[in-house]
């Protein structure tokens, strides 16, 4: 039995793990290797450089500014997405009128769920085109500007720049060496796009969780005289804790990455000012567009640092949110 067990374990793990190690871990290990070199990414020879690249990280103001941007996203993006998704899920499942069948969702909730999920299905190229049109800085052709101009908020001579705006919004900029730790409007726009795309998925996730909460718990609470708001905080939230913590980890990892948005949607002008850079897009820029002769090695060092941040974040999240599962 024991022999069969060992053979089974090895048999099941061998090929998938091998595949994974060869195609994922091995390239990443090489990345770690390159982070200790002055390689430019092209030449056959790879000069060894020790830990100098890591020391340079602390002097790289744009990297630190990008890190700050990631921190802003890490706070805002998961919270807004989770709150919106929870809110919609609650509306869809408990927001309807109570009748003989008890508490239920609003009419057409199935349709809403389907529509809300749409953005998940779009490739980033499409999302980029859509949103650059929406944010376009013209009251003739820009969706939002045209709308705001009609209402009279925006002067056609001064359309809002949105994806082209470097001014910090909500958070004041903190001068830091030659750069500023800030939360530029363009960054908020990118977060808005991310939220727009993400809410549907988490809505479906939470909604599923809510459906598995027995109806009578809601009924009972309502009959007790609790308002829907109270049932939300006293019942829904605690019982959904597991889904929320999973969502938190996923969204956190996405917030620390954010590459496709910062690379494919932020215009080149914003990438040049650094206003839209997050760690990943700055790494990409450094690897291919910097004048350092050791750019690839240096970019690899940044990426290793970024991966370390993400790893630590995910571990912390998993520890914080781990808690006894509520059985019912």
């Amino acid at each position, binding site marked *: 039995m024991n022999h*069969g067990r060992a053979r*089974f374990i090895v048999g*099941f793990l061998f090929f998938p793990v091998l*595949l*994974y190690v060869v*195609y*994922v871990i091995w390239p*990443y290990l*090489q*990345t770690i290797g390159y982070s200790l070199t002055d390689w430019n990414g092209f030449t056959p020879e790879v000069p060894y450089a020790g830990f100098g690249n890591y020391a340079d990280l602390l002097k790289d103001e744009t990297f630190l500014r990008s890190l700050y941007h990631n921190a802003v996203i890490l706070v805002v993006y998961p919270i807004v997405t989770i709150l919106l998704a929870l*809110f919609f899920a609650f*509306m869809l499942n408990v*927001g309807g*009128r*109570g*009748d003989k069948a*008890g508490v239920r969702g609003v009419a057409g909730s*199935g349709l*809403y769920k*389907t*529509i*809300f*999920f*749409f*953005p998940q*299905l*779009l*490739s980033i*190229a*499409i999302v*980029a*085109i859509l949103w650059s049109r929406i944010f376009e800085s013209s009251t003739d*052709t820009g*969706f939002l500007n045209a709308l705001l101009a009609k209402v009279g908020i925006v002067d056609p001579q001064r359309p809002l720049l949105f994806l082209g705006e470097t001014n910090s919004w909500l958070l004041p900029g903190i001068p830091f060496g030659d750069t500023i730790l800030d939360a530029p409007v363009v960054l908020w726009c990118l977060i808005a796009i991310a939220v727009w795309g993400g809410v549907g998925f988490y809505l*479906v*996730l939470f*909604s*599923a*969780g809510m459906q*598995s909460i027995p109806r009578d*718990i809601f*009924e*009972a609470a*309502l*009959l007790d005289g609790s*308002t*829907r708001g109270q049932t939300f905080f006293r019942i829904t939230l605690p019982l959904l804790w*597991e*889904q929320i913590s*999973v969502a938190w980890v996923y969204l956190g*990892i996405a917030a620390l990455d954010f*590459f496709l948005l910062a690379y494919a949607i932020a215009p080149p002008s914003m990438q040049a000012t650094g206003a839209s850079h997050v760690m*990943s897009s700055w790494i*990409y820029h450094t*690897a291919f567009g910097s004048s350092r002769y050791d750019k690839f090695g240096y*970019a*690899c060092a940044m*990426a290793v640092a970024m*991966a370390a941040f993400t*790893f630590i974040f995910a571990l912390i999240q998993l520890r914080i949110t781990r808690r006894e599962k509520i059985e019912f």
Partner: protein
Amino acid sequence: MTTTTSKHELPTASGPVTTTEKRKPEGRFLTGFSHVFLAVWGLMVGVPLIWATVQSFRSDDEILHQPLSLPTSWHIGAFGRAWTKGHIGEYFFNTIVVMTFSVTLSMLFGAMVAYVLARYRFPGNRAIYYLFFTGLVMPIFLGLIPLYKTVQNLAAMLGLSSVIGLNTYGGLILVYIAYSLPFTVFFLHSFFRTLSTDVAEAGLIDGASHTTLFFRVMLPMAKPGLVSIGLFNIIGQWNQFILPNLLMKPQSGFEEGKFVLTQGLLNLVNNSKYETDWARLFAGMTLAMLPILVTYLVFNRQIQAGLTGSITK
């Protein structure tokens, strides 16, 4: 105590009437309120997509000058242009070939690994788990250059360049599987942990082998989880463009490219920088979006059901 009382009250004739009356104002207000919010968000999500689809039926002149109005006449020519220039048909075929294998095998391998890691204690279990976890947190583009060399050299070493090398279905399939594994394993791991152990034990006592147990008992029980992670993998691999952009390109002028759909779309996007044909771009976009949209609508129910089961049970 109150809980049981009210539960018992519900079926009686007087019970529901009074309670409904009592909560009517709140309920009506909330319903109206939720409809407004839901409708606004629905518009925010739906309108841009409809708008983009409508653009594919318009002329470039209209797209540029009246972007927000409906087309005066409907043109379908852009779809033809997108089909030829974007090679939608051919690339669609390539995408399907790759994904048939890569999604199926991602799920199979992911389930195998997750199951073993979740249900069996053995030395090195945690190490392997964290190995997969690491894959979740590394930025993908950083491993690109080494990955290219790995695919190239490994295939050459094994003498299989035309099977799993660069610009081959096999190569991309293996890479897709490898890059889908971390998330699949992570997701299914927590899932298998919560499955009841009784069935498994009963099966083993009955003399079923571990393998039989997995395929006959555990895998069917894990169906909801498999559905949801399957959806993830389909969406993820369908929209993937960093990996095919690196690996699925002709390596010399004498090879045919086996592009996937996202590359075709990217080509259309890039083309629009040099020769403006917006309608064609939007048409390509619509065509590329359609299959996955249909898949989603058809399987909507299963997906929702799958998600319901996956996390909570």
